[in-house]
């Protein structure tokens, strides 16, 4: 807990809150200013829009501690504001609200449009208001209300102020309080508890791996390549699950498989997202078809997310003697918190990079089979960035080679 002091609607408001407390919760929970509404709570719906240092901002994705010393104006503070008063009358006249949930945010954003845009078209107003969602009115009344207030004010000779009167640089609300580097009383979550969970997670995941016979991955990826080694050598390699796993960046096994069953972990890091999946894998091999599967499932206790993945492989004689063709199929499914990240294209980009690295490592390991050279090092953690650099360099080179007709 940390005491945060702000000016709210002209008076000092201070309360002891956690650093994670966003501005809307600060106002609603500690100041009883419930006019600021929370809708989506991730900056999309606009219901929580209020004024920070006189300009509109989202209070659900602005932490109170970051606004220390700033001037906050909520809908309650706009009772006697000239533009807001005119807007309230216009919203009433034009049926600019029904349930009223979006209205506080609508009024704050509408006030900004009236203040800043000199002579907006209906389209301009709709674009400028597009960050505030209303599920009742269909927006027609809201837009008319704003048009009416603007026409009236310009008619009275009141000009727009395009920059809203802001003079200083940087995020609204910042720069008021002295810097504090609080060493803090230790990490918010004890490291010990985070370390204790994986074992538990592995235990829960055990059942899941078994129940997975009918499971189909959400995303699959196929790749074939040929290595200069006899089929038997390659087939044996795939039997050493630990070595196969080590080709997957960030993956590791807790020990050797027992009865086709092995415990392991994979660490993945994508931008600000870090996950550490612990779980189990079932290993099957079929001598007759020279094919096998490694099916694993794991949980990341921190994000409470789960993933299941399957690696299928078939080895067969290549086009010439002593060469082996390897067909690899990799599939995965992600559920839980991390799967909420509804940008499937981005997840796909990361998965492709991870799988690309796996195949590269696999080829490299196989190429080193029997030549006595040490196996190539593999990253201890999947870092999308560093991998990307190498994979992308190839792609870029190919691209420019094609473009300019030179290598």
């Amino acid at each position, binding site marked *: 807990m940390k005491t945060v002091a702000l000016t709210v609607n002209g008076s000092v408001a201070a309360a002891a809150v956690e650093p994670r407390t966003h501005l809307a919760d600060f106002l609603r929970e500690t100041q009883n200013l419930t006019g600021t509404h929370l809708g989506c709570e*991730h900056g999309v719906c606009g219901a929580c829009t209020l004024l920070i240092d006189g300009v509109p901002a*989202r209070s659900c994705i*602005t932490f109170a501690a*970051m606004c220390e010393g700033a001037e906050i104006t909520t809908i309650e503070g706009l009772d006697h504001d000239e533009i807001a008063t005119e807007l309230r009358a216009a919203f009433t006249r034009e049926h600019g609200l029904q349930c009223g949930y979006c209205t506080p945010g609508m009024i704050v954003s509408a006030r900004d449009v009236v203040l800043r845009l000199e002579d907006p078209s209906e389209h301009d107003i709709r674009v400028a208001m597009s960050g505030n969602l209303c599920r009742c009115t269909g927006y027609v009344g809201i837009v008319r209300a704003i048009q009416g207030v603007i026409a009236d004010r310009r008619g009275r000779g009141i000009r727009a102020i395009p920059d809203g009167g802001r003079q200083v640089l940087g995020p609204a609300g910042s720069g008021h309080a002295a810097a504090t*580097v609080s060493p803090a009383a230790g990490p918010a*979550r004890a490291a010990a508890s985070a370390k204790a969970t994986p074992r538990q997670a592995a235990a829960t995941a055990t059942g899941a791996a078994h129940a997975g016979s009918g499971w189909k991955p959400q995303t699959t990826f196929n790749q074939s390549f040929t290595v200069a080694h006899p089929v038997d050598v390659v087939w044996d390699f795939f039997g050493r699950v630990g070595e196969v796993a080590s080709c997957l960046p960030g993956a590791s096994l807790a020990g050797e498989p027992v009865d086709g069953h092995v415990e392991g972990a994979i660490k993945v890091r994508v931008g*600000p997202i*870090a996950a550490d999946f612990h779980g189990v894998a079932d290993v099957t091999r079929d001598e007759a078809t020279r094919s096998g599967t490694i099916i694993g499932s794991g949980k990341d206790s921190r994000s409470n997310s789960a993933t299941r993945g399957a690696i299928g492989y078939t080895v067969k004689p290549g086009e010439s003697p002593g060469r082996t063709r390897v067909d690899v199929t990799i599939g995965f499914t992600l559920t839980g918190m991390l799967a909420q990240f509804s940008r499937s294209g981005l997840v796909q980009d990361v998965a492709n990079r991870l799988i690309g690295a796996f195949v590269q490592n696999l080829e490299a390991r196989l190429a080193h089979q029997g030549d006595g050279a040490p196996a190539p090092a593999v990253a201890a953690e999947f870092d999308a960035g560093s991998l990307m650099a190498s994979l992308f360099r190839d792609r870029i080179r190919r691209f420019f080679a094609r473009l300019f007709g030179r290598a």
Partner: protein
Amino acid sequence: MKPVNFDYARPADVGAVLDLLKDDTRLVKLIAGGQSLGPMLNMRLVQPDLVVDLTSVTELKRIEERADEIVVGACITHADIEDGRVPDVTRGALPKVANGIAYRAVRNRGTIGGSLTHADPSADWVSMLSAVGARVTLRGPSGSRTLPVEDYMLGALEADLAPGEILVSVTIPRLSGQARWGYYKSCRKTGEFAHAIGAFVVDPERRISRAVFGATESRPVVVADARHLIGEVDRTAPARDFDAATADATLADGGMADALDRQMHVVALRRALEQAR
């Protein structure tokens, strides 16, 4: 929709930020405006131990205008650029692009450095600043380095930031009086993540012709010498020389497999040309 509990620090200068980043026993996240990180924290996609607030570092909110370029601090907001608090050296390109980022309430807090470091392929700055030929300056334990914006982004959500490093400023070259530019993004809803972006800058005086396909699922596809792709950018018919087949082949070479996706990006660049300023 509440973040995990985290510690909070508000250092006064870049040196103090770098000191905080040295602690690799804790997951440390830097925050500027928090308009991308905030939602990810609320959804608990990101669960840091320590959040370091950069917005009290005055160096990061400074601007320095030089003869041929302007250096803007990482914590300069989209609204600062939109409103002209940052002098425009790009013949209106950056203010116009800033004006189209998300919504005004977001632009009042979201920052140029935060957007580039978050490295969302759909974001506006990585595409437009690549077209303009801007560079980022990073500072870390082993000193400072400068690299082109398009090289700073490695892939979706991944910036080329070494452990302990931060982005301190963005350097934007001054376009000459003859320079022309265009920017078009395709969104299903105003202000949401773009599905395709096309951008270009031609500046004959500085011998520059650059085109960018943005909002791919990874880094933008930057064509550093785009003369064969966009041609002269004629005053009356700016898209006259646009070679759609080459654009499509360029995207295919860049790894865009889906034909519909390529078509959207080809159209985005054509519209950017049609709207040349």
